[in-house]
């Protein structure tokens, strides 16, 4: 195996609330082969240079979800991000704790906000106690039904999506991409008996706060594609309830917005949803997003997958369909 090395410069966020007035960045330089994962480098720093560096890690193989952090400003798993490409692109490797969760120390964040949202979606099968499994079938699930679960069970609860999500940042009530993807997993489960209830209850302060920016899908190391699952949930929610929630109106606005411009302008969408007066109340959120994530307002992003949009139109257009 070839063993050329690169001199990798790490700028690591250090902060111990008990001792430090404010966070600082500490520089460590190590000679490493380019395919060394950032986690391996951090563990070498701990073993050889500075045992006081705090971080979470366990499996070192992208399956336990412990080691998500900001690496050169992107939410990534440290154990599967290689130093070579990072050095080539950025000339150094800035390592910081995840966002949207308070820092406990160095790279360790308090994940309580993330788990609270996970709990909120009632992450367990709600079965009919008299008939826990669908009746009249030899097996609880057909292969086709199992196919619905391609992506969501891959989730390792790493919270990279939660860290990347501007809607979470703007509104702590927003469940966040992981919890919504998890909700999807129960809504499509043929054994679950609470599909409608789940879809109704997730709407206030929930589903419709998603901005469809796809940053979660971009951040997800397991290809769960949360923004696509959220899109599916929105479709199903409309089908169940019709356009009654503000959110569904948001979807109507969304449709007009798209048909006009083919792109999504978040600020305009907020106005269409709540009216100019209602906007004042919601503006808080919009403004917060714009302040913290200027790119959301500045450049409307093209939307991938036009067919998906067609489906939303179909769901919106004539009469709302019956729920599943």
């Amino acid at each position, binding site marked *: *195996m070839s*063993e050329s090395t690169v001199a990798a410069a790490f700028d690591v966020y250090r902060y*111990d*609330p*008990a*001792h430090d007035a404010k966070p600082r960045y500490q520089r460590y330089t190590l000679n490493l082969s*380019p*395919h060394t*994962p950032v986690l*391996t480098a951090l563990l070498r720093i*701990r*073993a050889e240079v500075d*045992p*006081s*560096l*705090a*971080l979470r*890690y*366990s*499996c*070192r*193989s*992208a*399956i*336990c*979800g*412990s080691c998500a952090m900001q690496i050169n400003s992107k939410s990534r798993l440290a154990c*599967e991000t*290689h130093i070579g490409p990072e050095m080539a692109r950025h000339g150094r490797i800035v390592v910081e704790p995840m966002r949207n969760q308070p820092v*406990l*120390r*160095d790279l*360790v964040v*308090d*994940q309580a906000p993330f*788990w609270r949202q996970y*709990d909120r979606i009632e*992450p*367990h*099968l709600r*079965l009919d106690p008299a008939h*826990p*499994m669908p009746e009249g*079938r*030899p*097996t*609880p*699930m*057909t*292969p086709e039904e*199992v196919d619905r*679960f391609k992506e969501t*069970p*891959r989730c*390792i*609860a790493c919270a990279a999506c939660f860290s990347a999500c501007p809607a979470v940042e703007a509104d702590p009530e927003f469940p966040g991409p992981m919890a919504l993807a998890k909700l999807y997993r129960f809504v499509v*489960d043929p054994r679950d008996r609470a599909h409608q209830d789940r879809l109704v209850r997730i709407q206030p302060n929930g589903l419709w706060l998603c901005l469809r920016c796809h940053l979660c899908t971009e951040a997800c190391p397991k290809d769960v594609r949360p923004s696509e699952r959220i899109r599916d949930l929105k479709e199903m929610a409309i089908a169940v309830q019709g356009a009654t929630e503000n959110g569904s109106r948001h979807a109507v606005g969304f449709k007009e917005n798209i048909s006009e411009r083919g792109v999504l302008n978040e600020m305009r969408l907020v106005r269409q949803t709540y009216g100019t007066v209602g906007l004042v109340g919601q503006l808080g959120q919009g403004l917060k997003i714009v302040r913290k994530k200027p790119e959301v307002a500045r450049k409307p992003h093209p939307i991938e997958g036009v067919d998906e949009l067609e489906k939303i139109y179909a769901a919106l257009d004539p009469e709302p369909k019956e729920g599943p």
Partner: protein
Amino acid sequence: MRRHEVVVVGAGLAGQRAALAAVEAGREVAIVSKLHPLRSHSGAAQGGINAAVGAEDSVDTHIYDTVKGSDYLGDQDAIEFFCREAGPTVVEMEHFGTIFSRAPDGSLARRAFGGAGFPRTIYAADRTGLALLQGLWERLGTERFTLYQEWDVTDVVVRDGRVQGLLALDRRRGEFEEIAAKAVVLATGPAGRIYGRTTNAHSCTGDGLAVAYSAGAFLKDMEFVQFHPTALLETSILITEGARGEGGYLRNASGDRFMAKYAPHVLELASRDVVSRAIVTEVQEGRGFSGPYGGYVHLELMHLGQEKVESRLQEICDYCRHFAGIDPVTQPIPVYPAQHYMMGGVGTNSRGETNLPGLYSAGEAACVSIHGANRLGGNSLLETLVFGKQAGVAAAEYAATAPAPAMHATDLEEGTAAFRAWSSRTDGEDPSAIRNEMQQTMDRYVGIYRNEADLLEGLKRIRVLKQRYAKVRVVDQSRVFNLNLIDAIETGHMLDLAEVIVVGAYARTESRGAHYRTDYPKRDDAKWMRHTLAKRTPEGPNLSYAPVGYTRWEPKERVY
């Protein structure tokens, strides 16, 4: 002081299942886990879980395969119970929410695993462990219990001949606390990090075994350590048997498919121990490749073609690309065996009971024993659930009538005195240096091939490391998430266990299952068909032996 009826230590599959059983039995339950439950190492299991559910398969063949796989060191009564529980356990997990892969007719899909007479390994794509962990956590979430998340248990307190509770460190606050309990279930999982080359996660440091051993429990059959033949060279990340099952070749540096020499009929598909030994022999005799991470051989998938490799061996492709920078479609994969599973553990019966009243254990931390000298793939996930439940039921029964626990005011003070000493030292050694040397020692002297001289050398070195450890120093003075302190605690645990492994391996003058002595290459049933029990004394482990549970399966030579 915190107080609970049943405290389960560990929230992997075994711990969660035990907690669920104890809650269902009406007890008040707490779980203490150093990781968030969903980050437990159970989530890393890819292959699957065994259950004889197909029409052509039978519970009896599952029993026979397990007894034979164990090289006749497994307790046959426990194995019979275990295999009978398999079907109902899998169905129960499905009801809890686990989504298994299905065959076209809608029945549970099954794949073939080494050492099994039929394809009986039920799976959820290539992430069975994660699917089980998610399903069980979702189910457990509907019950009431207390979760101490990111707390490390450092001691089991035993007084008046029974368990009174625990001491544990809350990582987040950096405080040690007492948790009084009527019954304690240790389900702390693997101990693979005693070795440098291991497929196990960093958290797999055998804490539960070490605290049980310190408290006076027996450790059973610790010398039986399973090595997986194909781990990625540098990181020892597991490359599953599937790679060979789909037709992968193993080649040495001269390009020979060397398995032809060691297993002429089945070649690469020989059992794990045979393939592991073959790879080590090739490398030791100079026919392997060499590089900065030591000797290795090649696992080749290139001849299978891009289509097959990418569709059938997707996760292996991902692992190679992400963690080794290698594309298995066009490049050979450098592999070498790595520690994979501990057959030994806290000695229990099939109710999870140890020799200490009030102390229970289950999962990879425990040794019932159903794996004997060699575990079959797919049996350990099943073990966590079957015996996790039993341990939870037994602990709940015991706690229902046990007297209130009696922790003393001095327990905490005494149990944590050493930790304070480490932090106030001005000289002394960092735990990571000691840990690294322990790992190298175990890789080199207590690995796949063992002999008297190596084992004695290994023991000598481990004892020197224990002396050095007496002067370990923790430099990090912060309380919050002090990993330096946790490293020091875990290193101490692993040194104790390393000593037990070497002493047991030295005493066992035969070869059986995963324990291979070049100076005693034959199995010796007359003398050694018995379990090793290690008890802690100030001088080191004291060994005694116990008979193997026998029902109806006569020992035969183990050939595949």
